[in-house]
């Protein structure tokens, strides 16, 4: 698992990425961070930040904050997968 210092670096990079890179690349990085770091809650807040930055009302997903929703889904899914992997390893 990543150290605290590398976690801070990743936080900064992700923070920059939501301003500069296409949203799906940031989301992929976020998924990587969810996998590498334990309880990477910052990812959820960054997802919410991205939604706060760009959100406009829409009919397609019932006005849901899409990036936050996807990051929450990825967080829960990856947590579950990590747990399963650990159990299998034991």
């Amino acid at each position, binding site marked *: 698992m990543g150290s605290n210092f590398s976690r801070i670096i990743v936080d900064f990079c992700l923070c920059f990425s939501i301003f500069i890179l296409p*949203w799906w690349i940031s989301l992929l990085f976020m998924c990587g961070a969810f996998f590498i770091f334990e309880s990477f809650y910052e990812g959820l807040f960054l997802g919410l930040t991205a939604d706060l930055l760009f959100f406009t*009302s829409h009919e397609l997903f019932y006005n849901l*904050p899409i990036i936050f929703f996807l990051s929450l889904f990825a967080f829960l899914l990856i947590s579950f997968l990590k747990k399963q992997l650990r159990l299998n390893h034991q």
Partner: protein
Amino acid sequence: MKMVFLSKNNKSSKKKFLIGFIGLLLMVAFYLGGLSFLTGPLHYAGKPLWWLKNYSFEIVSNFTAIIKTKETLSEENKELKIKLNQINSQYLFLKTLSEENKELKKMLGRQENNYKFILANVLAKPNLSPYDSLILDVGENYGVKKGDKVVVDDTVVIGELEEIYSKTAKVHLYSFPGESLNVAIGFNKIVGMAKGKGGGNFEVKFPKDVLFEEGDIVVLPSLNLFFLGVINKIIITPEDSLQTILFKIPINIFELKWVQIFQE
């Protein structure tokens, strides 16, 4: 005294429940607009980053122009000059027609309202988010209002202002996937309901017997001054009683640098 320790499984399920609950709470707060006060400061923080990104892109594109050989540049220059001459003559013709149109409207008692444009720099383009939105560098400081139309090159309307902050504004593009919009097509202004397909593309369905041609102009029924797009494909299949008309905004919204905000 007896101490009771929570089992690891119990702890982790409580933690998951808490995360889920906080997530839900944040989503509800977002939905009800309780977090929108954070957007202004976030835009303020993002402004230098977006500016830096756009500037560096410009430098890179200028650099690629330098790398090109003299021969290709001179050939390109010749072609562009020829095109410019053609466009200039077409422009003069259209200008005359437009003046004539205005005069005729005046004679028939249809005065055009006074309006003005506010020029705005595009800070963030649609590819940064799944929302098909733009972020502009004008806000309350320029007196723009929610619902003001956003126009490109004086003629093409692409969306409207949805949220205004002190120094920035968010634009909702009409082409958001699944978004419905009333449009009028062709010279006869046949009204239909178009659906956004993202990236400046739209789709509209009509019965087969309504005739359209590729290149027909699409406008908003409420706004005759600007056009929304041009028909680029008409799909007719024998098994479908409706024809599908695909039209798109005649500019690349991913390359936008400047837009105008239309104020009546």
